[in-house]
């Protein structure tokens, strides 16, 4: 009788010896794969640990080299806040300031010698904070009276000088002025804010305001000077001088420089800012997008090492213009 057999027939058992050989072979492959996987994982973990260790060491090294590390936080508030909670955790880079005595006019003794520099980012915005001890608050200007101020600077091309750049080596400068802060916090700082008892009977074509007779004058800038003819005497304002803005929206201004004396305000200023004076110290924050479409703006890229400069003006010490104290370039890195 002939019996039809199929490999699936349970009656038919394969040769034990033959199948044992196969099994061992498969098992050994499996074990090898497993071992390989475990080994690779271990190697990878090791590598990862090494990378982390390297990163930590690198950060430590950067920190030791004085690089300002910019950590990522969840979000930077829309309204710039120089005393927000997150600043307490942000790394501080101590900045040494020297008197500007290279270009005339100069100062030969620094009124402020040290400042604290910090920065954070949140994926789209970057915020800087500069703080320094100043025993006097100078927020108004007049003849021989000057405002406290701070500026941060970034090189727009490689090797631009920390002294406001140079011809073909432009830098971007973002300045905050205590005067501008007061313009925003209170109102445009007018004659009566400096000389409360000053009185003038009238100003041509101006409209007296009867709301604030106690403020010393019924004529206030800009409320009383809405008539275009009344504005004729404000030559700087009418010339669109960025200093003579009566309705300022930000206490900071973005500018471009190609060396001493060449500072020019940028048409578009994306930066926002705020400054407060607390316990004998100024705390100023300047916030701007990490990257912008503006070709005149410095662009920040995570992981890249960049440079920042700081300058501070102390009003009571008659600091203004080139009469300031400033830092060398300080390296910074937005931490990915």
């Amino acid at each position, binding site marked *: 009788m002939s019996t039809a057999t199929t490999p699936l027939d349970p009656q038919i058992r394969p040769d034990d010896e033959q199948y044992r050989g196969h099994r061992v072979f498969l098992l050994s492959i499996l074990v090898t794969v497993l071992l390989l996987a475990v080994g690779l994982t271990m190697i990878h973990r090791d590598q990862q640990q090494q990378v982390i260790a390297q990163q930590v060491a690198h950060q430590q090294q950067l920190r030791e080299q004085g690089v300002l590390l910019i950590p990522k936080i969840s979000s930077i508030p829309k309204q710039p806040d120089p005393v927000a909670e997150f600043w307490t955790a942000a790394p501080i880079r101590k900045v040494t300031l020297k008197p500007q005595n290279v*270009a*005339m*006019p100069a100062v030969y003794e620094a009124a402020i010698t040290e400042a604290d520099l910090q920065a954070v980012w949140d994926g789209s915005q970057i915020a800087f904070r500069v703080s320094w001890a100043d025993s006097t608050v100078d927020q*108004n*200007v*007049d*003849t*021989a*009276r000057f405002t406290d101020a701070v500026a941060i600077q970034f090189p727009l091309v490689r090797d631009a000088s920390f002294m406001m750049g140079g011809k073909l080596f432009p830098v971007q400068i973002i300045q905050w002025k205590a005067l501008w802060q007061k313009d925003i916090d209170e109102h445009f*700082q*007018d*004659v009566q804010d*400096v000389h409360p008892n*000053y009185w*003038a009977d009238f*100003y*041509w074509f*101006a409209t007296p305001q009867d709301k604030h007779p106690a403020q010393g004058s019924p*004529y206030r*800038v800009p409320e009383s*000077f809405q008539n275009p003819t009344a504005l*004729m*005497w*404000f*030559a*700087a*304002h*009418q*010339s*669109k*001088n960025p*200093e*003579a803005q009566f309705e300022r929206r930000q206490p900071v201004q973005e500018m471009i420089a190609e060396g*001493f*004396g*060449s*500072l020019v305000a940028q048409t578009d200023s994306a930066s926002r800012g705020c400054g407060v004076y607390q316990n004998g110290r100024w705390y100023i924050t300047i916030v701007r997008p990490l990257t912008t479409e503006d070709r005149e703006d410095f662009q920040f890229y995570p992981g890249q090492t960049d440079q920042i400069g700081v300058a501070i003006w102390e009003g009571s010490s*008659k600091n*203004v*213009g*080139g009469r300031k104290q400033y830092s060398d370039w300080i390296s910074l890195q937005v931490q990915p």
Partner: protein
Amino acid sequence: MAMRMNWQLGRDMTYPYEAPPPKRQIAYIFDTNKCIECQTCTVACKTCWTSGKGQEQIFWNNVETKPYGGYPMGWDMRLLEETPPAKWQKEKLVSLTIFETDKPTDPPHGHRPDVQDYGAPNLGEDDITGLVDKGEHFGAMHPMWMFYLARICNHCDNPACLAACPRRAIYKRDEDGIVLVDQQRCRGYQECVRACPYKKVFYNLVGRASEKCIGCYPRVEQGEVALCVESCIGKIRLHGFLTTAAPPRADNPFDYLVKIRKLALPLYPQFGTAPNVYYIPPLHVHDGFLEQLFGHGVEQSKKMYRELSKDRQLLGALMLFGATNRIINRFAIEGDEAVGWDMDDREVVRVPFTERTYIREHYDGKHDVYRHNTT
């Protein structure tokens, strides 16, 4: 640093910029002997140019009493104290100008007035040099004196304000030498306020920029004299141009009075800015004081002025003061008249040496009235 010839000092001096002189140089002559300090010039200027908010203390034109007056307070005395006294060897200054006293890289030597210094525009007004003793009487020369000094921006050949501006926001116009602050570029550093020895740049706390006398350039461009000149009721002022590109012309009243005859003298030439407001010194003030103010030519100038009646050309030029609102480019004496032509060479003024006298009848038949010598 460039070396520039300063004709007022009779020597070369250093200045930060090399620049050719302007095509012509705006200039003024003020006759101090005729000024009564009515301040009409001050009001004319202020009403037109500086009556805005923030300009309360800004006087592009002011008239002060010398020796004690000054706006801002002590503007000249403070600088005189800080700089070495002027020393002249004949017509050459041998002492140092404000551009030469400090290090070559420093801005011109100056002092920045404080805000209080602008608080009293008429301080020292009408004060004389000393007390009047009991029994004092006039004996040909007053023992004590004062005089009025009208002051505007000097539109200097070597402006200290321009030299000091780190932003180069101040410029001197090539067409007329008028010195202006670029109101768009100025950032209010006040370096010009500090450097100008005449303190004729002012800080505007509302505009937050510095401002100065603009030489009434919109009028000058039309051939008209500045408002302070036109409004002067004492006719003490003449406004026009000095020749810069050619030798002085005897028929240009400015070249004639300033460079050829040297009747009108610069104010504090020793500062070195080569100012372009020229003064005829007051006759009644002693030379020592006047030489400090106007340099070496005082004695000669006074002598000429005393002998004016014999000097028809000089007197003729002086008769043009306040006679027209047009800038006089050329003048001549024709018979009994001094004649002036404007920049377009049109005759604009004819002043007789002797005022015509009209004698009218006592009785006016036409109106049937008697004329009385009273008003």
